[in-house]
C-alpha cells in the first residue's frame, strides 16, 4: 500500500476532479469519491493501485483435492478471487443419439458468502451467464473427449457433474472459474466399476478388489481423462488506450469495458467475448489482448503442472 501511494503522489499536479485537489483529502476518500481520476493518475505511470504493472495478472495458486468426497476437486485463487470446484461422476444411460458418449453438466454458483451484492434467494445475474460460457468453452474446445466417459456402449456412461462455487468474488470470475474447472478435471480419478449379477454397474473399492480377484472390471484403464487441448483465458478491462489484465472487482466496476479471450493450447481462439462497453476495440487492441492471453497461458500451464507435481509428492 505504501509503495502504491507514492506512485499516486508522483502522478501529481492538478487534474483533481470536482474542484478538490488530492492533497485536501485523504487518499482513501478520494479513491471512493472520484474513482476514475484516482485510477487515471496511476495509469499515467503504467501502474495500478495494488502496485501491479498494467499487464500483470495477480498471484495465482491452484490446490488439488480439497473435497475428499468428490472424484476430482480443486481450489483456485487469483488474487482475492477464490473458487472451489468439484467433479462427481454418476452412471447414466447414454442418449440414443450418442450411445458411446458420456455427458457433462457444468454449474457455476455464486452463494451469498462470496460478495456483498449477492443476497440469499436472489441469485447474481452473472452466475447463469458464466455457467453458460464455461459450458460453451469446455464443450467447444474439445478438452474432454466424451467417449472416454463411456462404460458400456448404449448401456452405461458417466455423467460428470462439475459444480464451481465462488467463495470470494474480486474480479475476473470467469478466468478463475475456468482454471478451477480444468484443475478439477485434471485431478479427476474415475472410480473402478464392475457389473453385478443383475447387469447393473456397481462401484468397486480397492479392498473388494484385493479380497476377490474374480471381479471383472468394466474400466481397468481409462482412470484419468486425457486432455486433447486445454483452454486458458484472460480477462482485460479497457480504459482509453490502457489495457489492464486480470482486473479486480473495483477495476471492473470503474472501467466497465472488458474483454475475455480464451485460447487453447494450440493457440486457436476458443472465445473472444466483449459484451458492449464504452470503449470500442480496434484490431491492434484485439491483437494485444490475444498476445497477453498467450503469455498468461504459459504462466497458467506452469502453475497447473506445479500443482499436479505437488499432489504427487
Amino acid at each position: 500500500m505504501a509503495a502504491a501511494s507514492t506512485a499516486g503522489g508522483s502522478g501529481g499536479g492538478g487534474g483533481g476532479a470536482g474542484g478538490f485537489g488530492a492533497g485536501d483529502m485523504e487518499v482513501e476518500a478520494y479513491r471512493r469519491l472520484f474513482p476514475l481520476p484516482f485510477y487515471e493518475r496511476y495509469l499515467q505511470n503504467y501502474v495500478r493501485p495494488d502496485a501491479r504493472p498494467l499487464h500483470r495478472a495477480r498471484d495465482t495458486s491452484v490446490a488439488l483435492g480439497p473435497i475428499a468426497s468428490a472424484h476430482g476437486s480443486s481450489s483456485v485463487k487469483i488474487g482475492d478471487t477464490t473458487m472451489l470446484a468439484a467433479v462427481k461422476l454418476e452412471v447414466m444411460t447414454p442418449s440414443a443419439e450418442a450411445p458411446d458418449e458420456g455427458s457433462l453438466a457444468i454449474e457455476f454458483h455464486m452463494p451469498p458468502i462470496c460478495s456483498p451484492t449477492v443476497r440469499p434467494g436472489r441469485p447474481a445475474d452473472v452466475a447463469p451467464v458464466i455457467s453458460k460460457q464455461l459450458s460453451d468453452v469446455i464443450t467447444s474446445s474439445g478438452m474432454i473427449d466424451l467417449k472416454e466417459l463411456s462404460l458400456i456402449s448404449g448401456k452405461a456412461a458417466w455423467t460428470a457433474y462439475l459444480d464451481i462455487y465462488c467463495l470470494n468474488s474480486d474480479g475476473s470470475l470467469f478466468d478463475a472459474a475456468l482454471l478451477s474447472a480444468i484443475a478439477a478435471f485434471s485431478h479427476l480419478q474415475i472410480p473402478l466399476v464392475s457389473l453385478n449379477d443383475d447387469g447393473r454397474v456397481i462401484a468397486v473399492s480397492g479392498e473388494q478388489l484385493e479380497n476377490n480377484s474374480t471381479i471383472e472390471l468394466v474400466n481397468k484403464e481409462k482412470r484419468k481423462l486425457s486432455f486433447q487441448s486445454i483452454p486458458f483465458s484472460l480477462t482485460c478491462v479497457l480504459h482509453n488506450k490502457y489495457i489492464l489484465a486480470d482486473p479486480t472487482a473495483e477495476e471492473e466496476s470503474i472501467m466497465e469495458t472488458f474483454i475475455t479471450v480464451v485460447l487453447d493450447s494450440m493457440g486457436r481462439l476458443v472465445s473472444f467475448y466483449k459484451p458492449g462497453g464504452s470503449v470500442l476495440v480496434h484490431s491492434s487492441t484485439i491483437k494485444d489482448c490475444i498476445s497477453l492471453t498467450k503469455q498468461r497461458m504459459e504462466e497458467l500451464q506452469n502453475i497447473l503442472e506445479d500443482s499436479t507435481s505437488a499432489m504427487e509428492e
Partner: protein
Amino acid sequence: MATNPSTYSPSQSSERKQLQQQRRRLFQETDWTRFDGRGFQQCRPAFLKTGAASAASGSAFAAFGATKVIVSVFGPRESKKAMLYSSTGRLNCNVSYTAFSTSIRGQSSDHKEYSSMLHKALEGAIILETFPKTTVDVFALVVESGGGDLPVIITCASLALADAGIMMYDLVSSVSVSCFGRNIVIDPTSEEEACQDGNLMITCMPARNEVTQVTLTGEWSTAKINEAMELCLDACSKLAEIMRSCLKEAASAPS
C-alpha cells in the same frame, strides 16, 4: 430415497440399509470403537481460521473432521427498503449447502431450518443496540457435510462476527452429542448421526455461563440429559478457548 428409474447409477440401497442396521445394533452395545478411532468423549480436532474472504466485513472457516463450513458476515449495512424503522440492529442469517456437500449429489439449496436456528443461537449474544437501523448479514456455506453441521456453523458464525468487529457479549460455541442406548457420544459424525437414538445440542456463551440455545431430539432420561449437558458445556468452554486463541493469533499476525 427414490431412485429415478431411468438412471443407471451404482446404488446399493439394500446393502446400505443392511449396513445401517448392523451399525445400529453395534452402537447399542456398551463397548465399541468409533470409526475414526475416537473415544466416546473425544471431539474431532477443530481447525479454525478467520479472515479468508476479503469481500466480506468478516469471515471464518471451520473444519471439524470432514465437516467444512465457511461463514461470511456483511455489514452492519442498510436494511432492506421494505423494513420498518428499528432502534436496534437486525440480524439476518442464511445457511446453504454445496451440491457436493453430501455423498449423494443434491441440488445446492438453502437450509431454512438451520437458518432460523442459527439466528436464534446468535441473536442473544449480539449487542444489537450498537448498530441501530442497520442489518448484519451472516451467511454460511457448508462446503462438506460430515456430521454435527449445525454446531460447527454456529461456532464458525460467531467467530466470523468477531472477525467483523460486531459487538457481542461473548463468543458463542456449540457442541452436540448423540445418544445410543446407554452410551453418549460427543461430536458425532454423519454415520453416527444416521443411527442415533437421540441428539442434544447446546449453544452457549461460556464466559458468562449462559446458554443461548438447547435442542433435544429423541428419547432421553433425565439423568442422561444432565450428563449430556455437562459434557456439552465443558466441551463448549474448551472450544471457546480455541476460538479465542484463533482470534488472538489473527490479531497479532502482521496483516
